C-alpha cells in the first residue's frame, strides 16, 4: 500500500497528490510515469510523475478529474492509501543542451511539461514556454513554469487570464519570427492540441516531441492496448514511449483509440456519482 502524504487542489478539477513510493522516487526522471490502482477492484491508470523527492521517497502526480478513477482519486486525503503504484515507467525525456527550446503545456499537460522544462533549463538551454488552458481556473504552476523559463507565454481559450488564444497561436507567431532559432519543441496536453502543434511545426522541420496518453492496462509492454501507429510502424507507448517524434504519429488512429470505452466510462462515472453523491454532500469521503 502506498500512502498519500499530501494533497492539493490546483483548480476545481485539477488536483495534486504526493504519494510515498520510495521505489519509484529513487529512479524517477522527467518524462516518466507510474501506473496506479486505487483499490483492488479499481482500474490501473497511468499518471505522469510531475515531481519527485528522492530523500523523502515521494512522487507527485497531478491529475484532471475526467472520469471515475480520477474523480475517486480526487476524494482521497492524506493518510489514505493506494493499492498499487508501479514505476517509474517509460523512457525519460532526452535532456541535452540543444540551444533554444520551446515547451508547450496544455491543461493538465502543464504538470508533466514542468519537470522537462526544469531539466532543460538546468542543462543550459534557453527555455521558451507556452502554457494554456480553457479558462483561468484550470491554470496552475504559472510561478513554477516562470521560474524555469526565460520567457513564459500564458493563454486561455476564453481570455479570462493571459492572452485569449489557444497555444498554437503564440506558437505560430514564434515560428514565423524565429523558427530557425528553435532547436526542439516539447508539447504535452490533450491529443488534439498535440496534433495541431505538430501540424504547425512540421513545415519548419523542427523536431517536436509529444507525450502520448493512450489507454493502458499493464504499462509494461505486455498487452498492446497502448499501441500507436508511427508512419506504419506499431509502437507501444508504455515501453517505447511515452515520448515520440510527433511528426510520425498517426493522430487519427490515436484519437479514435481513445474513444474505445466511451460508453463504459460514462456508465462507470454515473454509477460512481450515484453511489457517492450523498456521502460527499454529507462531507464524508467516498
Amino acid at each position, binding site marked *: 500500500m502506498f500512502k498519500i502524504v499530501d494533497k492539493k487542489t490546483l483548480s476545481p478539477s485539477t488536483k495534486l497528490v504526493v504519494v510515498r513510493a520510495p*521505489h519509484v522516487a529513487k529512479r524517477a526522471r522527467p518524462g516518466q510515469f507510474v501506473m496506479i490502482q486505487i483499490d483492488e477492484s479499481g482500474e490501473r491508470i497511468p499518471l505522469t510523475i510531475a515531481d519527485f523527492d528522492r530523500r523523502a521517497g515521494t512522487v507527485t502526480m497531478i491529475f484532471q478529474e475526467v472520469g471515475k478513477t480520477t474523480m475517486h482519486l480526487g476524494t482521497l486525503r492524506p493518510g489514505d492509501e493506494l493499492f*498499487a503504484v508501479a514505476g517509474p515507467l517509460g523512457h525519460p525525456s532526452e535532456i541535452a543542451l540543444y540551444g533554444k527550446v520551446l515547451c508547450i503545456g496544455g491543461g493538465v499537460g502543464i504538470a508533466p511539461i514542468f519537470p522537462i522544462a526544469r531539466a532543460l533549463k538546468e542543462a543550459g538551454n534557453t527555455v521558451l514556454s507556452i502554457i494554456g488552458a480553457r479558462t483561468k481556473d484550470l491554470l496552475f504552476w504559472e510561478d513554477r513554469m516562470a521560474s524555469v523559463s526565460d520567457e513564459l507565454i500564458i493563454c486561455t481559450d476564453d481570455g479570462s487570464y493571459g492572452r485569449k488564444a489557444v497555444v498554437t497561436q503564440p506558437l505560430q507567431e514564434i515560428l514565423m519570427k524565429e523558427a530557425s532559432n528553435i532547436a526542439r519543441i516539447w508539447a504535452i496536453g490533450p491529443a488534439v492540441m498535440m496534433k495541431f502543434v505538430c501540424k504547425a511545426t512540421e513545415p519548419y522541420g523542427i523536431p517536436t516531441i509529444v507525450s502520448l496518453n493512450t489507454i493502458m*492496462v499493464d504499462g509494461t509492454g505486455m498487452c498492446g492496448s497502448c499501441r500507436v501507429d508511427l508512419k506504419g510502424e506499431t509502437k507501444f507507448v508504455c515501453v517505447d514511449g511515452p515520448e515520440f517524434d510527433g511528426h510520425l504519429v498517426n493522430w487519427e488512429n490515436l484519437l479514435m483509440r481513445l474513444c474505445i470505452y466511451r460508453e463504459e*466510462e460514462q456508465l462507470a462515472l454515473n454509477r460512481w456519482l450515484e453511489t457517492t453523491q450523498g456521502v460527499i454532500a454529507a462531507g464524508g469521503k467516498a
Partner: protein
Amino acid sequence: MEERRKKLNLNRVPMPKQPPETRRLNFEEVALGYTDDLARLEAERCLECKKPTCVRGCPVMVDIPDFIGEIKKGNPEGALKIIKNKNSLPGICGRVCPQELQCEKQCILAKKGAPVAIGRLERYVADWELHNGRRSIPEIAPSSGRRVAVVGSGPAGLTCAADLARMGHSVTIFEALHVAGGVLVYGIPEFRLPKRIVQAEVAYVASLGVEIRLDAIVGRTVQVDELLSDGYDAVFLGIGAGAPIFLDVPGKNLNGIYSANEFLTRINLMKAYLFPEYDTPIKVGRRVAVIGGGNVAMDASRCAVRMGAQEVFVVYRRSEKEMPARHEEIENAQEEGVIFKVLTTPVRFIGDEHGWVRAMECVQMELGDPDESGRRRPVPKPGSEFILEVDTVIMSLGNSPNPLVPQNTPGLETTRWGTIVADENGRTSKRGVWAGGDIVTGAATVISAMGAGKRAALDIDAYLKAL
C-alpha cells in the same frame, strides 16, 4: 496373463463437468474434480509399476505410483507430501499440465487403453489440502546467509523461489504486476484455473519465507546489476515471454482489435467480466473472431462466449490436426459453441467510419510442403478471398519476449528471437544470473517453466555454496 488382463480397467473414471449450456454463462470452473470415491476408483487402476514409465514423462519427476498408492489407501495427506517433494504447485499442474503429452502419455496403460488420470488425481490431492487446511509444512534448511533475487512470479519464478527457500537461502521475488502468479493469474481464465488456487499456491511459497515485492519492474524500478551489487548473491530471471504479436495486415489497429494478452488480462487479472463492480471495462461484440489455434486462442474464444458474444469463430491457418491447443480444450470450446474456421487467414481488417472493425477479409489456405517445424506450410489459395463480418477480433498469435530486462542488463546474451541464452541449468552469459521458463524457451508450458525453475535452484544452490 489372462488373469492379469482381466483385472486391467482400461477406462478412466470420468470427471464431472459443468454442462456446456450452464457453463457458457458463467466463469466458474468447468471441470469439477473427483470426489474421494471417484479418486480412489481411478487410483485403483494404477499398477504401481516397479519401473514407472509415467515418471519419465513428468518434467519434474513426481513420484507418481507412490502418491497414487496413498490415494488408494485413503490417505491424501500422505499423497500430498510425496507430490510436494517434487512439485510445489500441484493444484495448478493437475489442472493445466498437458498430461496427454507428458506423464499420461508414458503411462503403461496408454498402450492398451486410457492411461491413469494422473493429472486429475494430482488435482484431487491439492484440492483436498485446500479444503482441509495446510498440512504439509516442508523442512527448511538452516539459513545459509545468502540472498537470491527472483524476477517474475510465474511458475518458473515461484518454483525457483520455493526450492531456494527450502535450501535455506533468503529469497525475494520482484513482480511487475500488482498480483503474483504470472500467466496463471493474467492469462489462464478463472473457469480453467480458479484464482483462489493460484493464491493458495502463492501463499504457500510465501509461507516458506519468500518475500514477494509487487509493483517492482526490473529494468525500470530496479536493474539486475543493482540487485547484484545491493547484496543479492544471485538473480533468477523468470520473466516469461510476455509481449504480444500482432498480425501485420492493414487495419490491425482498428478499435475492437485486441491482443489475446490484453483481452485475457482485462478479463482475468482486472476482472472486466465483473464490470461495473470492477472498474476495468472490456468490449465484446456479437461476432468475435479469435485468430490462432493454441491454448491461448481456446481461452480467448471461451472467454468471449462467456462475455455474451453470439458467434465466436476460431480462425486458424492450418487444419484442426495441426492445432497446438490441447485436445481437451478444443473439445471444450466446441461444446460451448465456438465455430472453427480452419485453413483460413485474415488478410485485412475493414473498419467503419468511427474506426471500429466491422469485417475481415480472409483467404483460404491449403497445406503445402512441410516447413522447419515439420508441419505442412499453409499457402493461400488464389481467388478464395471472402468477407467475414465481425465486430471484435482477438489476435492470439503467440508472444515474443519482453525486452525490458535484456535491454537494461549489459552482458546478458539473447538470441535473435529475443529469448535469453541459458544452459540446461539456467546459467546465462552473465555471472550470477540464471534464467528459465518462457523467457528462455519461448512460450511453452507451466510445468516446463517449473522444471527450469527447479534445475536453476539446484545450480544456484551449488554456486552459493561454492562462494
